């Protein structure tokens, strides 16, 4: 009994502090209001983030629908015997939150600066393609093909089930850590741009 009264008193005391008016609003109002606003903002932010993380969003602008999406549809990452589809964000947006934000800011630059400003026809897209592709290669190279590895991993690869040609490559270059997926598997989801000067990953002269 004594404990409940003590708690009730403590709560009441707290409440009095809370309820004491600040200049215009009560401290309680300010704190709770701030909390609610925070929840709304954070939730809204993440919801917006999630919404912009769907394939539907990516291809809502016609440049992406007419170009990368049409091409993706032909490839093994769209339909395959396993029934797993890789959508745009699977390969293009990191899963880690901080990486994700960083990538979003980079992408918004691309979206506003490049897409709406300059890439409004197929021809302009193709002209810019090498540059855009290089950004992706650099990114995947720098993070050791992180997005590929979210679905594929060297550890869970059963090379006895792979074709000899693939086994030899993976044993010599992948498992030794010498090369990463994107060094050898460029253009697995889209048509490639002009590849002059780009060495295949299995060449000694390819950039490490």
């Amino acid at each position: 009994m004594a404990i409940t009264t003590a708690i009730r008193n403590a709560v009441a005391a707290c409440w009095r502090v809370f309820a004491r008016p600040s200049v215009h609003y009560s401290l309680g109002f300010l704190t709770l209001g701030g909390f609610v606003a925070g929840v709304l903002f954070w939730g809204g932010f993440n919801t917006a983030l999630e919404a912009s993380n769907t394939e539907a969003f990516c291809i809502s602008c016609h440049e992406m629908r007419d170009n990368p999406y049409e091409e993706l549809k032909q490839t093994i990452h769209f339909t395959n015997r396993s029934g797993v589809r890789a959508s745009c964000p699977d390969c293009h947006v990191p899963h880690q939150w901080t990486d994700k934000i960083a990538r979003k800011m980079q992408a918004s630059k691309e979206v506003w600066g490049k897409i709406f400003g300059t890439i409004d026809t197929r021809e302009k897209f193709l002209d810019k393609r090498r540059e855009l592709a290089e950004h992706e290669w650099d990114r995947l190279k720098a993070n050791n093909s992180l997005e590929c590895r979210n679905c594929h991993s060297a550890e869970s690869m059963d090379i006895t089930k792979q074709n000899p040609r693939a086994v030899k490559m993976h044993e010599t270059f992948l498992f030794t850590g010498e090369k990463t997926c994107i060094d050898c598997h460029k253009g697995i989801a889209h048509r490639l741009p002009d590849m002059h000067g780009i060495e295949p990953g299995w060449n000694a002269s390819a950039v490490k």
Partner: protein
Amino acid sequence: MTSRILIAALVLTAAIPALLMGGVSGVVAADGKPGPALSGPVVSSGPHPITLDRPAEATNREIVDDVKRVRNYADQPPLIPHAVRDYQIDLNVNKCLTCHDRRNVEGSQAPMVSVTHFQDRDGQTLGTVSPRRYFCTQCHVPQTDAKPIVGNRFRDFDAVLSTAPAKEGAK
């Protein structure tokens, strides 16, 4: 009024043969008459009523076991023993050459394109793969496990030799 009835009657009369025929034989999606029995599976695009939905035949599996196949004659373009799905060959890039070109075979351990691929039509050997050999899949094709639709009696050189009548003086 009478003229309309007349026209309707005429139209009906004209349609009689078509109606009769339709009832008897149906409309046929013909790729020609059913020929003499072929060895091999029935061709699904063969004669059948266009109103009939024939289930598509199962697609055949690609052979991608990396095992080289015998060539039937010396200058046959060898068959492709590996997967080539989505391999891009166009102005931008030739995926095949990323492995089979002279400079790349050390890394890829693929057989190099032979010297004929560097020759133009005058027999001049060029420094790089000749434009007329650029589109590899014009000549080199992957295989599936499909059975041939039409049989053939091709025998290679050695088979022909072994059944040739022995010549005078050949011991």
